[in-house]
């Protein structure tokens, strides 16, 4: 098997995640889909690291994880506080920016 299949898999997961972001309305699920996309990218990075024979790809994936963790923390905090005020976790309900 050619390890490039990992990249195909990553592309597939990324696409599914992206579609999920567009389709789902529950902010938490949207967030999960974003995480899915990030994970797909990580997989691609790891595969590329293997392809190039260096660890830099893994480092990038590592940083991605760190940043994702930070993002999750803040993002979920936002969701919680939005939920508190609006009693809804739907992204469609947070539409105060609408004209």
């Amino acid at each position, binding site marked *: 098997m050619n390890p490039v299949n990992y990249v195909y898999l990553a592309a597939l997961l990324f696409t599914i995640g992206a579609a999920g*972001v*567009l389709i789902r309305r529950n902010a938490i699920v949207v967030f999960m889909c974003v995480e899915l996309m990030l994970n797909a990218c990580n997989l691609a990075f790891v595969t590329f690291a293997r392809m190039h024979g260096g660890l830099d790809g893994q480092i990038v994936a590592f940083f991605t994880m760190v940043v994702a963790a930070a993002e999750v923390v803040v993002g979920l905090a936002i969701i919680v506080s939005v939920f508190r005020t609006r009693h809804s976790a739907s*992204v*469609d309900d*947070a*539409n*105060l*920016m*609408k004209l």
Partner: protein
Amino acid sequence: MNSLLGLLIAAPLLGAAVLLLGGRFVDRVAPVLGSALAGLSFVLGAILFSNLLGKPASGRAIDSDLFTWMHVGTFKADAAFHLDQLSMTFVLLITGVGTLIHIYSIGYMAHDEKRRKFFGYLNLFLAAMLILVLADNYLLLYVGWEGVGLASYLLIGFWQHKPSAATAAKKAFLVNRVGDIGLAVAVFLMFTTFGTFTFQGILHPSVVSSAGQGKATALGLVLLLAACGKSAQVPLQSWLGDAMEGPTPVSALIHAATMVTAGVYLITRSSAIFNAAPTAQLAVVCVGAVTLLFGAIVGCAKDDIKKALAGSTMSQIGYMILAAGLGPIGYVFAIMHLVTHGFFKAGLFLGAGSIMHAREDEVDMRKYGGLWKKMPWTFATFGLGYLAIIGFPGLSGFFSKDKIIEAAFAKGGTEGWILGGAALLGAAITAYYMSRIMVMTFFGKPRYTTKAEGGTSPEAHESPAVMVAPMVVLAVGSVFAGGFFSLGSRFLHWLEPVTGHSEGHSPVSTGVLTAATIVLMLLGMGLAWFQYGMREVPAAAPRSIWPVRLARRDLGQDDFNHAVFVRGGTRFADGLAEFDAKGVDGAVRGVAGAVGGGSSRLRKLQNGYVRSYAFSMFGGAVLIVAATLFMRAV
């Protein structure tokens, strides 16, 4: 001597500065200080004059280079002065008459609370006029040219609280500005053609002819435009009548004796250019001839004594311009008439001022009459000026005007006959309108009722000595100047080195011409006496036939200007303002509106749903990936 030249100008300039900036502190000394500085400048002029007389006739010139004014590349404009016979003549006239009028004003303006400013402006005028005639290049001349325009503006509008005065001042300045265009273009043309604009550089027959007749004609025409503006010649004559809104000493000094003759100075000074451009000369004589008749006709119809005199001034300057346009035959006589005119017209205006002073600024001659008994000094001096201007034999006007008529005939051919005829006719009309003024003012019964008699007018009285004295001096000048100048062709020899002179040969003999002039003059006087002396002058102007009405309305000059320039210009400007708001700015606002409309449609994409935005991002990403792949594939 060189430094005296600077001092000559500096004296009145200093006076202007002190009087205008000094504030209330100099209020009390203002009349004396202003007059003293004018007198000082006259004394300096006299010293310079004696110095010039001491030099040989060909080398009578004093130069004074003060500093470099502007210097860019090959362009160099100096603040430099050049005194020769021509400018000397003007210096003496300006400072002499100027001093007299300063003195007169001490009396005339005694009760005006702003007299400090008045004397300041008068001094400013003297300085500017001196710069005008002493400049050694056309640019500095331009400075003086506009400077006298400014002084004229300030003095015409001296009684600013009168809207008519403010309007007249503005009009004078604007019409003069139109003429200034000519002078400015002349300077540009000189520089691009000759690379210089100094008198010494350009005013030389070989230099002017090197540029060709076309350039010379162009120069002559633009200079004529300038002269028309300043000297109130047709078609830029309309401001002079209104300029009579200014105090009468101003009318005497600026709008009779000195400033309005600057055009004559300009043409005479530029004789080398005009000599090389017959077409331009023809234009000059046409302007002169037309104006001399125009002014004379207007002068016949006016009941306002100052406006009648203004018409006369216009006419007399027409004579001068005519003479100057005749070329070397006429330059000297143009200047001679200018000087004699300076005396008698200033005298006449001062006389008019004296009458107005006595009659509380009443200017309507129909409300005068029989003043000779009450104002003997004024009557005497005014009468002498009157005799001088109509060319009564032996008085100044006779000598100078007669020469001009002769020179006009000497032009030769049809042209000569037409010009000479016009000049002769002008002499007759001059006699008529001046006699009219004289008769209506001094003779007949008084057409007013004094307060003592239960009327509104004050009792007429003779003016104080400080006003009478200058009038007497000017009357003496009016009587004797012409004879003095003509005796042994003194004036001719004095000026010839500058202007050149050639004797013309008139197709009519001198004796016949003189006789004809005298006869015409007597005819004019007789007609006036018949019309105004023999019968009662109505207190209000009677309805008359249309030529008289037209003449009363300044031959329609203001109507024309108003219809074409004022109303047309206003309409054009309003249209342009509309265009600016709707057209230029409208185009901009149209674009803004289109953008606004477009974005209010596009705004609907902003539906506030985050998923929709995310979709846009994702769609964009898809497009970018597709484009990248496509580009790589291609």
